[in-house]
Each structure stands twice: as C-alpha cells, then as structure tokens.
C-alpha cells in the first residue's frame, strides 16, 4: 500500500491576493516526483514477486483520480481515492493524511507502505514518519535502496553524513528519496490495462478520521526579492563590509 500525493507543478508560483496560500486554480496537478519513485519501487517489488499486490492511494478532490490512474498505468493493481475537497482539502495536512493512511493500512492489512519522502508543494516531510508512529510500525525514511530479506527490510538511508543501513521488521513504512530508482514511463499496453483496474472511492469519515486542521495559516508571502550585491576592491574591504552588516 502506498500513497502518491497530488502536488503542484506550476510554471510560475503565485501567492493568492488574500495571502492564505498559493494559487492552485487552473494549475496542472501531477504526481509528486518522490511518490512517482515510490510507485516505481512498489511495482519493481511486485515484478520481483516479493509482494502480491500494489494499491495506489491518494487523498484529494476528483482530479486525484488522474494521478491514481497514472500509478495504475505504471503497474499498480488497484486504487483507492480518499475524497477530500473544498475547504477540507485546502487545510489537509500531514497529520490528517497519516491518520487516513494508518486507518487504510489496518483495513487493507497492508504489509508495507511506501511514499515519497516529502511533497514538493509543502515540503513537510512528515507524513511517512507520522503514519509509522500512528501504526507503531518501524520506518525506513529517505530510502535510496530497499531490499527484502525474509521478513525484514534492509533500507539504505540517505542522511546528512552519508548513507545509513538499517534493518526493520515488516510491516513497515518506507519513504522514497531521489536516488531510489528512475520511474518508468507508462507503456501504452499498461495504459490500456489501467483502464480496467478498479479505483474505489472512500470518505475520511468512513475511516473514522476527522480531517479538520489544528493548524491555521497566518500568512503566505513571496520570498523577498533578491537585492543586488556590492562589489568590493580588496579583502580588507570585504571583511569591513561583513562586520558592518553584522555577519561576522
């Protein structure tokens, strides 16, 4: 069981006039790149006959179905669309999503949840970790390599200092990092097959999850315009300027 997020990949990001967020209307949505990597890893595990079934899950409004179909075209077996729309969707964050995933994991009796390490719209990097905590499952985050060894998962993690290898027991949560794999292009025959695969609709309430947010966004601003720099003649001048600016 794994979860591709719906995410924004707009040509140019603009902040909404009321400063409560970014403009999402008319912006093309597509699968979060890290989740694409997660889908690819899951499909690979199935091709190696190490897992029986791959279920693609996404939370959001109607358009999310397109993303789930892409996952099906990549090789997932079936999809679950957790319907969250309107105001609820605007305030949907990692805590609510991880509650949904935890509930689904129990319902589907999943053995492994693979998701992208973070969504590139909010960069939270929390959902995987929270899901594991809610389920009390071990987690292998920032995975750049995943190997199944009997009932344990060997995960090589990308950390600041280098690479860390851990062994975790199944069931577990894994979050995919950039170098885990290169996602495949959906082939035409698989796109045809995806048409016949099922996507089931589910509401958060059906899973006993309350999607109301405990966070309130106060404001969203564009990053400050880059100021032009100053050229200095000598190293001495540079040190002076840095001292002036309180940098050293």
């Amino acid at each position: 069981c794994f979860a591709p997020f719906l995410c924004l990949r707009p040509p140019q990001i603009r902040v909404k006039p009321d400063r409560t967020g970014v403009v999402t209307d008319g912006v093309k949505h597509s699968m979060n790149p890290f989740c694409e990597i997660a889908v690819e890893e899951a499909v690979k595990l199935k091709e190696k006959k190490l897992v029986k079934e791959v279920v693609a899950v996404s939370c959001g409004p109607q358009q999310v179905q397109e993303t789930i179909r892409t996952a099906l075209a990549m090789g997932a077996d079936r999809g679950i669309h957790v319907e969250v729309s309107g105001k609820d969707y605007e305030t949907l964050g990692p805590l609510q999503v991880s509650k949904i995933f935890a509930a689904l994991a129990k319902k589907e009796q999943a053995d492994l949840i693979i998701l992208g390490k973070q969504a590139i719209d909010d960069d939270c990097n929390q959902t995987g970790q929270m899901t594991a905590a809610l389920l009390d499952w071990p987690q292998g985050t920032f995975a750049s390599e995943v190997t199944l060894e009997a009932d344990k998962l060997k995960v090589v993690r990308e950390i600041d200092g280098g690479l860390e290898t851990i062994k975790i027991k199944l069931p577990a949560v894994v979050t995919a990092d950039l170098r885990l794999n290169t996602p495949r292009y959906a082939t035409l025959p698989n796109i045809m097959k995806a048409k016949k695969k099922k996507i089931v609709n589910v509401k958060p309430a059906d899973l006993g999850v309350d999607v109301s947010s405990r966070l309130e966004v106060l404001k969203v601003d564009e990053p400050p315009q880059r100021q032009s720099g100053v050229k200095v003649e000598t190293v001495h001048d540079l040190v002076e300027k840095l001292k002036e600016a309180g940098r050293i």
Partner: protein
Amino acid sequence: MAALFKARRALGMVVGHGVRCLSQLAELPELHQMMRQTCRDYAQKELAPIAAQLDKDHRFPAKQVQELGAMGVMAVEVPESLGGAGMDYLAYCLAVEELSRGCASTGVIVSVNNSLYLGPILKFGTEEQKKQWITPFTTGEKVGCFALSEPGNGSDAGAASTLAQREGDEWVLNGTKAWITNCWDASATVVFATTDKSLKHKGISAFLVPMPHPGLSLGKKEDKLGIRASSTANIILEDCRIPLGNMLGERGMGFKIAMQTLDSGRLGIAAQALGIAQAALDCAADYAHKRTAFGAPIGKLQAIQFKLADMALATESARLLTWRAAMLRDAKKPFTKEAAMAKLAASEAATFVSHQAIQVLGGMGYVTDMPAERHYRDARITEIYEGTSEIQRLVIANNILKEYQQ
C-alpha cells in the same frame, strides 16, 4: 503552455458521423489523454534535450527508439497478440505529434515504422508473414522502411521501373529506389516493383525484403536540410533474390497497397507536422513573454500578437482535421479526402508557423542557440514526402468532384 483540451463549440459543419466523434474532437477520451501525456513526458525529458545534437551529428537515436519500442510506441496499432500496443489510429497520431514536438526526426522514424512498414503488412500480410515481419519490429530493436519512390518517379508512383522477375521459386528484383527514410537503420523493407509492365500501374506488386540481403545495397546517406537524425538514401537492387513467399498481397496489388498505405501514412506525417508547428509556437510564445523591446515584453505588441494568433489557429485547425481523419479511419469509414486535407493543412501550418516563429525571435531565430531554425528546417519536408502538397490537392479535388458527380 497552450491549454490543449479547451471545450469546442459544435463543429456542426464538419460532422456527420455521430456524437462519439464530436465529443472526441472536443475532449479526448481518458485513455488517449493518458497516452498523450506519457508521450509528452518522454519527449520533453528524453528527446527535446538531445534533438539539437542529434540534428548536428545526423545521428539515429537508437537508444530512444528502443525505449519507445518498450513503451509500445513503435507499433501502436499492432494487436497485442503480435507484440503491439493494440491502440487506435487516433492514439497513434497523438503519439507522433507529441514525440515530434520533442524531436521531428524521431517522429518520422516512429511514423515510418508504424504506418509505412507495419501498416501494409498488418493489412495485407498472411499470418505467417505477420509473425515473421511484424513481431520483431514492435520492440524498437528493429525498424522497417518503405521503398516506393524511384529516382525517375515520386508523385508518378504508377511508373515504377524497378522490375521483379520470377525465376523458379524466387523473385529477382532489379532497380533503384530513392529517398527511403530509415533505410540505413532498417532491418527490412516493403519494396514495390513491376511484375507485369504491360498492365502499367496494375502490374506493380509489393515485396518484403530483409536488410541486409545479398543484392540489396544502400546509396550514400543524403545530406538533408532537416530531419537529419533519420537516414535517407537510395536502395539499390541488383539481382536481389527473395523467396516467393515474400510477396505481400497478391500479384498486381502493389499500387493499391501503396496508395492505401500512404492514405494512413499521411496522417502520421500530419501528426509530425503538428508536433513541429507546436514546438515552434511554444518557442515563439515563450520568447514573446521574455524578450523586451520598446519598454515591454514583445508579447504586448499587436504585431506579435497577430502572428501568435495566426500560428495557433493554423496549428489547431490542422490538428482537428488530423483527429477527424484518424477517427474516421478508426470507425472504418472512408477517410482519403480528410487524410489528404489533414496532411496538407498540417504541413502548410508547420512551414507557416516555423517561418513566423523565426520572425518573432528576430536574429535569435536565425542561430542554432534557439531551436526555431531547426523547426524551420524540419518543417519543410512535410510538404513534400508521403504525397506532395500538389498531390494532396489533386486527391481532395478528385474526391470533391466525385461527391458532386452528376
């Protein structure tokens, strides 16, 4: 990025073939949208970044052709039982357009393999021939080509001077074929040769010849204006012997096979032309936002706006003609006139749009730093091959006159 799925007002004038066709013109079915997206993603990530270098090096994109084969794009219409993707012609046209938008040479390589090589074998081949000549050519490992034109006749296809003589249990081919796309990279060809000179165009037959093969040699690679990553050369046949079983269709059927194959092939070229036009439009529109003159982005100037509007109109109109012809073909309805219209409109759109794109870019359009000059060079051939614009006009006119026959 141009929004490509805008709802259309009723095309009442154009239609006559049912609600399904109308709604498909307005909004593509989900399946087609998905496959269009996968081809677009592939073209953007894998083809567009290398297209300029492929053009410079005149290099066949072998790796990409194999990857496209794995995706099923080298044999879109071929049934799954033979190794293809089992999709319809509309899907194929979408694929070729998206790929051509990234690299026009790759587009024509895909188009020739699908329409001109696999097409006639799928339609006229025996089950044995299909297994032997289709399946290995669906994976991208091997590509095929189509040898109809000769140095002495292009548009005048009925005057094939290449001869095929029966000697015992073999056919012996002699002659020269010209302008054969893919031939330096191909592993087989469909060749048209005269079996009965007295019957004129009814005396032409089609043959399947493996490549390489004794008696078949290739002329020098042509140094072309555009689509340079695809090879074009003569095929020279000197006592080229092939088994009797290599005849495609029946004796004397060659001209009919060629004409029917080209009817479909022209949609592939229309799609390629659309891709080139769209790429040129992308380039020009992007530049119009960024380039400033007279104190504002040039996109604010009416002169540029009128150009962009005309460019978009030409492209979109040709696209709808192409889709309609493809849908007619998928519905097994006559589509010769519409296919000719599509090819004519799309190729003239490609040359017009790429010409104007250079104009919008000004000096930058003339140098290789920007892709506009490559689109201009790539576009030109679309008005010539697989039926010149003049031939398309004749085909359309003949169909119109037949419709109005007293």
